[in-house]
């Protein structure tokens, strides 16, 4: 018997998954050899004496945590009710009921005032880093953590496909002739496409649009404002600020670092360290201080696969290259000091 085999059989025994034959084999071995028996006893001791890590949390503000829970419950219930209302319409109990309901609805529809349209909101809540969803037209949306996408199921895809976004999302729009897909943000800017892939980040006072494929039209003040629109091409990144007509449009370089939240990949080719730090801050939602700031002009080349790295490992790598001293001020606040550009 090998050591690994002994351990395997012991583990099977402990988890209750051992077969009668295996049990017999194990016992035979242990009886035949005192040496194996002693080893098994040691492992059994380790197994039995292993106790779970401590189960108390040092300090916690239970009032604040409970408030957070209530807010979360409220959001979840609102989302669920909206989804249920749609379902209830469709899940009838047989044709007769369905027909009666339909008739009733028809009558009610004619006499009642126009109801406020129902809205479905989908949110990507922590701890998951992102959430994937499909809209009724087949368009694929990847929502970044904390982003909210809402649309009105009744009117969606009637004349146009309209959604409202807060936060960041990557859209892969299913092409549909004559039914433009429109993303609007809180202040009414609109992004219109026919079929393409693009990323929108709608913060409260800034809008960023990045086109990965196809073409996109952007109305900074909305279609009906009478103000002009801009056409964005592949690899265009547009930034516009609330209340400003002027746009800033840049061609993005070879990489897709702006989409790191989705691709989990960062590429740099001889770029200033400032770009690297900014990309890391955005991806990890952290604060990274560099002292002296002149270090930010050092050049950097390389690529990262971020889903296998945490921020601390990343920073340790930078420390090795630039001889920084790293200091962790909190889980999201780090400081790098000293250092020198290699090759200078």
């Amino acid at each position, binding site marked *: 018997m090998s050591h690994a085999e002994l351990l395997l059989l012991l583990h099977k025994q402990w988890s209750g998954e051992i077969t009668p034959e295996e049990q017999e084999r194990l016992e035979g071995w242990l009886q035949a050899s005192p040496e194996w028996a002693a080893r098994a006893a040691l492992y059994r001791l380790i197994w039995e004496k292993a106790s779970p890590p401590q189960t108390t949390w040092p300090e916690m503000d239970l009032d604040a945590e409970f408030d957070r829970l209530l807010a979360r419950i409220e959001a979840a219930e609102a989302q669920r009710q909206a989804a249920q209302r749609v379902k209830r319409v469709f899940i009838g109990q047989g044709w007769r009921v369905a027909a009666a309901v339909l008739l009733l609805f028809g009558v009610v529809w004619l006499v009642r005032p126009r109801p406020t349209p129902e809205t479905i909101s989908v949110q990507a809540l922590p701890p998951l880093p992102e959430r994937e969803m499909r809209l009724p037209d087949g368009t694929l949306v990847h929502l970044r953590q904390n982003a909210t996408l809402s649309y009105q199921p009744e009117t969606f895809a009637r004349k146009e496909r309209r959604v409202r976004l807060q936060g960041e999302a990557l859209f892969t729009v299913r092409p549909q002739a004559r039914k433009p897909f429109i993303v609007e943000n809180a202040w009414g800017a609109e992004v219109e496409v026919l079929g393409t892939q693009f990323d929108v980040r709608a913060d409260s006072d800034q809008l960023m649009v990045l086109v990965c494929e196809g073409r996109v039209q952007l109305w900074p003040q909305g279609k009906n404002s009478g103000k002009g629109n801009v056409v964005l091409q592949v690899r265009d990144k547009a930034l516009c600020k609330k209340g400003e007509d002027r746009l800033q449009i840049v061609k993005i370089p070879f990489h897709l670092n702006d989409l790191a939240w989705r691709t989990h990949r960062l590429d740099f080719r001889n770029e200033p360290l400032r770009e690297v730090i900014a990309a890391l801050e955005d991806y990890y939602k952290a604060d990274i201080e560099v002292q002296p700031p002149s270090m930010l002009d050092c050049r950097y080349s390389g690529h990262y696969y971020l889903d296998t790295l945490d921020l601390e490992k990343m920073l340790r790598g930078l420390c090795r290259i630039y001889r920084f001293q790293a200091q962790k001020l909190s*889980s999201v606040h780090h400081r790098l000091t000293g250092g020198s550009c290699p090759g200078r």
Partner: protein
Amino acid sequence: MSITPYASAEEDLEQLRRGCTAALRRIFDRYYPELVAAVFYYTSDEESSKDIVQEVFTELWIRRQTLNIRLSLGAYLRRAAINRALNYLKTRQRYQFHDDTTPWQDLADLSEHDRQWKEHQDDLEMQLRHAIEQLPERCRIVFMLSRFEGMSHRAIAEQLGISVKTIENQLIRATRLLRQALESHRYLPVIVLLWIKYGLGQ
């Protein structure tokens, strides 16, 4: 209906079903900190641990009327929290869970840690606990699931989306590493002898 501050878990659950938020608060106060601590040992991240446990309580509230709790409320919540933690690990660490090449370097710090630590406390259980905390992450998670959550190898494999073979390899590796960590223990041979002699029958 009177609400006493010392209601039992069953009473709390009953009141919860009727939609009483005070009962939710009592259940929350009783279990939240220990659940966050339990989840933390799998995720190693404070904020996500809190979020995960918050989601468990959100589900508890939303499904309060259709809940079918066969275990005790505490055991139910713990299992729900651990399952969620594993789902979270699965999405966060797809790649880490699949490759099997993690170097054993995590153990390198152990001896120094050990020496410091032994000045204060020379107790097998404490040393073992410490050694478990020092195991490589995947190894530790699989070991803890098997030992402390009472999950079968198959159940762990399904939860983590990896093969039973990998689970067994991780368990074998974990026990070996724990043995190596304990070998520095001064009284280990004596403890093993005594334990074989008097402890096995219990």
